């Protein structure tokens, strides 16, 4: 022990008992021993005992005491590896990994060969992806304890991660000779890992293949073996053998489309006819497999496609395959195929109505369900094509035909939602879920629809039909990491102007991702111990990519835009959640609101009751546990419940946003909104180079309209977001370039900006450029919104009115003809409502909604009063008057 103070035997024994208690998680017992030592005045300031006492306190949940004690212990004994180790553990338990790593390093300084500390350190290094450090630590562990197979494999993995393949392979070869493996399966995994490592290291393909063949008998995971072998054989050009392998794979699983691609490559089939013949052969051999029937549709063209598609559709419409449309949707990207499919299905419909056959040439009559599924398909087809009246018509026909089929109601809900009628969508799904209350999927869809309709509380009640008893909805969903729900809540709350609630939901999702990364920890030691290295390495790499997930991207974008709003309009923080109702609708709205409030209050009351009950149960449980074990333990640091108010009233919205911006830039660089949002944040932070970087990245994504090509720049082709960025940048630069002291920056900026089209440069008439942009593309709502927001940003004082006017001055017919989505209109509405275009007279918002209503005649989401017409109606299930003879 390098410790400066050593205890006499008696106390030393006590100290050992503290350590033992700690290892056995008997924290209170440990504290008793610590007290015995410390009560001796000679050792009252004994550093290691104090540190241990602190650690024990930590596990009993007394954080503050813990830190104080450990720090005091450390101060008293800076040369003790125990104190440093404890300090490291303490920080680790609070997820302060950087600090913990430092503490471990200090501990190792005083006890360089302490295996336990090294192990702890290596895990943290890996967790933090300090691969070099991990490799170094693992190397030392290996040298100290070369008889332990974990130390071998740990070092091999480390070498793999830092790319020292030669050494890794040499060690792996040695590892196998040393007979470290216990089971045949472990041996098999090690062999596959070695092959994978050889491949990764760039060894010649034939060497890897030879290695695989040599060991074929001992590799038990035949699937991985064959897939790997097939891939290598193709790469090696050994097509004949590759074809054999892929045939074997298809025989194992005729549904995997990758195998068919492999087979086609190995057989060097190029013409569509050859490929189709191959699929025909596979189909006759595996008649029940879907892949050999579906894949030909990707390949066939023209009349061949028509023939195959007809048969494909006919069989599935007869059988009743609900996801049929979904399975074929990818074909719709091909305009010709879309037309063919449409003509086939309309023909089917006509024939079914007139003669109960898909085609006149069919010899048998169809059961009524064939017509039903055809109607279902037709509705989805026209929904896809945006012909909403036809989509609605067909799904209504289908529901008249068979009102008990849940899929129809779900389809109608989708269609209505696309029409901009979220309320109608909810009604359909409520009926759907009543038809089968045991179907959790329908239940979730229904909750989703309620969220889309802005009814967060009711959505909670809906999902709670499936949540565990004695648990609040939100805590249950949080525990289940139910991100589809939280993401949707975030979207909904932002649209409703509840920015705090939106931020809370965003941060919940963010926490889940933190949690996912945390969850790796246990695998670092487990996987190496069990020798499942291949999946482990893939798992490590995948974890690094986790935040690419769309959920994360969505909440990040939402959080950033909310923080921007809070920064630009601090007043929003104190804005009442419900905007004042429009004058003419006021009375009606008031009544509706009262009703909604009542409903809300009821949901709230229920929630409170549940929370209360939940809390009491939990307390009871905790008490019980404490009594049972005499201990309470906390393994993870207790997360504080997120407080939407606190999030809303942040002092540093831009700094808060920056974290999400950086994540977006790292993980979603291919999304243009990443860079547009980044630009806005950097603009507010006054970082010219970062702004330009964002503009450049966005420009790269949408193609080059930078005006580098000589000739008059076609600014109307410019992405409206980039248009805005450039104008705002030049505007900012005009006002701030003088105050910049760094001349390098100025030079760079000038160099970059000089390549922009003249109307966007700082010396241009920016207001004019902005207005020109609108006149060239006057019929797109997205463009209008971008221009309006830019106008507001350029002249905050006089801008608002002009900006808002831009949103009203349309020619309805023209706007209707150009592709405007409901989302564009909703975005515009949101900007009007949240005041980012300036404070508007409420009547103007009503006017805008009216225009949107005429633009989307089937919508209800632009009704002056959101609750219009639905609350009063008793929820009578619509009766579908059945009309016989319509179809037959």
């Amino acid at each position, binding site marked *: 022990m390098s410790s400066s103070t050593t205890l006499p035997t008696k106390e030393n024994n006590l100290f050992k008992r503290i350590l033992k208690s700690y290892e056995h998680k008997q924290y209170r017992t440990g504290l008793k021993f610590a007290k015995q030592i410390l009560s001796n005045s000679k050792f009252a300031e004994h550093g290691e005992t104090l540190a241990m006492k602190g650690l024990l306190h930590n596990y009993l949940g007394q954080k503050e005491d813990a830190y104080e004690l450990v720090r005091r212990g450390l101060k008293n004994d800076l040369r003790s590896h125990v104190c440093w180790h404890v300090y490291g553990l303490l920080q680790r338990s609070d997820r302060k990994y950087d600090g913990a790593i430092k503490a471990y390093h200090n501990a190792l300084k005083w006890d360089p060969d302490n295996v336990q500390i090294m192990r702890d350190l290596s895990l943290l290094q890996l967790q933090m992806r300090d691969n070099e450090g991990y490799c170094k630590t693992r190397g030392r562990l290996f040298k100290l304890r070369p008889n332990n197979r974990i130390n071998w494999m740990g070092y091999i993995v480390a070498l793999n991660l830092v790319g020292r393949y030669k050494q890794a392979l040499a060690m792996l070869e040695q590892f196998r000779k040393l007979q470290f493996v216990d089971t045949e399966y472990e041996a098999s995994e090690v062999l596959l890992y070695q092959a994978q490592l050889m491949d990764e290291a760039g060894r010649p393909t034939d060497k890897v293949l030879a290695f695989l063949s040599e060991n074929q008998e001992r590799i038990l995971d035949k699937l991985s073996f064959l897939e790997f072998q097939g891939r290598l054989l193709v790469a090696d050009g050994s097509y004949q053998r590759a074809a054999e392998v892929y045939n074997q794979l298809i025989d194992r699983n005729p549904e995997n489309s990758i195998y068919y691609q492999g087979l086609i490559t190995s057989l060097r089939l190029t013409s569509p006819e050859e490929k189709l013949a191959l699929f025909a052969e596979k189909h006759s051999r595996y008649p029940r497999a879907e892949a050999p029937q579906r894949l030909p549709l990707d390949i066939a063209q023209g009349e061949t496609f028509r023939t195959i598609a007809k048969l494909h559709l006919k069989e599935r419409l*007869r059988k*009743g395959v609900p996801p049929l449309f979904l399975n074929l949707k990818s074909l719709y990207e091909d305009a010709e195929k879309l037309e063919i499919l449409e003509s086939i299905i309309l023909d089917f419909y006509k024939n079914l109505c007139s003669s*109960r056959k898909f085609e006149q040439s069919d010899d*048998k*009559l*169809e*059961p*009524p*369900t064939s*017509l*039903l599924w055809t109607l279902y398909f037709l509705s989805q087809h026209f929904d896809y094509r945006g012909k909403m009246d036809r989509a609605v018509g067909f799904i209504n026909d289908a529901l008249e*035909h*068979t*009102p*008990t*089929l849940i899929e129809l109601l779900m389809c109608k809900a989708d269609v209505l939602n696309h029409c901009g009628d979220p309320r109608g969508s909810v009604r359909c799904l409520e009926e759907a879920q*009543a*038809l*089968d*209350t*045991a*179907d*959790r999927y329908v239940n979730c869809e229904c909750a989703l629809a309620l969220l889309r309709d802005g009814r967060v509380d009711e959505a909670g*009640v*809906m999902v*709670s*039909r*499936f949540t*565990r*008893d004695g648990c609040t909805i939100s805590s249950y969903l949080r525990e289940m990491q139910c991100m589809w729900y939280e993401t949707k809540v975030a979207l909904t709350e932002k649209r409703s102007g509840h920015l705090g609630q939106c931020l809370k939901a965003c941060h919940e999702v963010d926490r889940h991702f933190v949690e996912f990364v945390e969850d790796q920890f246990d695998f670092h030691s487990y996987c190496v111990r069990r020798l499942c290295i291949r999946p482990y390495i893939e798992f490590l790499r995948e974890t690094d990519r986790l935040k690419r997930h769309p959920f994360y991207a969505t909440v990040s974008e939402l959080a950033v835009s909310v923080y921007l709003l809070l920064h630009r309009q601090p007043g929003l923080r104190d804005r009442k959640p419900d905007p004042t109702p429009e004058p003419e609708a006021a009375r009606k709205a008031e009544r509706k609101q009262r009703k909604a409030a009542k409903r809300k209050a009821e949901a709230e009351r229920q929630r409170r009751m549940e929370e209360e009950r939940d809390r009491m149960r939990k307390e009871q449980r905790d008490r019980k546990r404490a009594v049972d074990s005499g201990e309470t333990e906390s393994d993870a640091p207790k997360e504080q419940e997120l407080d939407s108010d606190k999030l809303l009233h942040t002092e540093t919205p831009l700094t808060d946003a920056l974290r999400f911006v950086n994540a977006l830039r790292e993980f979603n660089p291919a999304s243009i909104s990443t860079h547009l949002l980044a630009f806005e944040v950097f603009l507010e932070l006054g970082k010219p180079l970062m702004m330009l970087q964002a503009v450049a990245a966005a420009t790269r994504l949408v193609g080059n309209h930078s005006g580098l090509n000589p000739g008059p720049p076609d600014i109307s082709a410019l992405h409206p977001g980039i248009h805005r960025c450039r104008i705002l940048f030049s505007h900012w630069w005009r006002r701030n370039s003088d105050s910049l002291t760094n001349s390098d920056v100025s030079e760079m900026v000038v160099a970059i900006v000089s390549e922009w089209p003249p109307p966007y440069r700082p010396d241009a008439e920016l207001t004019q450029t902005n207005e020109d942009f609108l006149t060239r593309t006057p019929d797109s709502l997205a463009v209008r919104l971008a221009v309006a927001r830019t106008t507001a940003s350029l002249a905050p004082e006089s801008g608002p009115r002009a900006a808002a006017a831009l949103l009203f001055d349309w020619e309805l017919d023209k706007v209707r003809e150009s592709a405007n989505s409901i989302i564009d209109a909703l975005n515009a509405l949101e900007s009007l409502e949240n005041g980012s275009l300036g404070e508007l007279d409420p009547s103007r918002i009503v006017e805008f909604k009216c225009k949107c209503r005429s633009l989307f005649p089937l919508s209800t989401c632009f009704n002056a009063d959101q609750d219009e017409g639905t609350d009063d109606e008793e929820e009578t*299930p619509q*009766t*579908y008057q*059945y*009309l*016989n*003879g319509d*179809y*037959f």
Partner: protein
Amino acid sequence: MGKDKDVSVLFPSVTSFPKTNPTSTCSTPGRYGGRIDLGTITQHNLQQLKRLNQVVFPVAYNEKFYIDVLHVGDLAKLAYFNDIAVGAVCCRIDTSNNQRRLYIMTLGCLAAYRNMGIGKVMVDHVLSLCETDGKMDGVYLHVQISNDSAIEFYRRFGFEIIDVRENYYKRIEPPDAYVLQKTLRGTPPKPLSWPNRVENGVDVDRGGGVENGIEGGIEGGVENGNADNVAEAPVTPVENGLDKSNISEQTLTDNCVESTD
């Protein structure tokens, strides 16, 4: 609903699966390559029964009807065609007149699925229940006197007209009902003669099927209902003797015309 403590609400997928699986019994091949199955009615799919009755019959049944249906076991069944619920049969055991008889309260299916053999599957089911029971004296039901296709349908299963109840129905025209019965034990009551239209082979036009389906369905008025009906359902007139029938019958009728001739 959300506060329902029934375990099957908490783990519905587990507990409801065997109950709601329509293919748990052996499928019967229907016409045009369809499959017909009967399935149990549970609290989870009860709404499907309500929806069907709403569409098929012109009458609303009250809550008690639906609560009872959950507890009668095989006496109430949903009929599935190609896995879609398209029809239903609901019966109860009637012990009036010192007899033990099965009373068909409702039996019907969606118009688009008539003539598929679904009605036959349901009636066969009812008859096999009686056979299993072994102590049934008969099966009976009410049918509106104008509902030719339904009358013809039951005739083919060996039902006879044993009585006419005047003003049995309250809100539909004509308000009179036949009592149709298939006697299983004991001396059958002397049957009345079949209406001429039916006897003569019937010209049930296709469009009429629906009409029949709906009107045929009808509930019995309490006044007319027998004593136990009144006892069981004192509150609503709607609830007791609904007989509905008619169902898939109309083409069955056609078939039958051919075969019986």
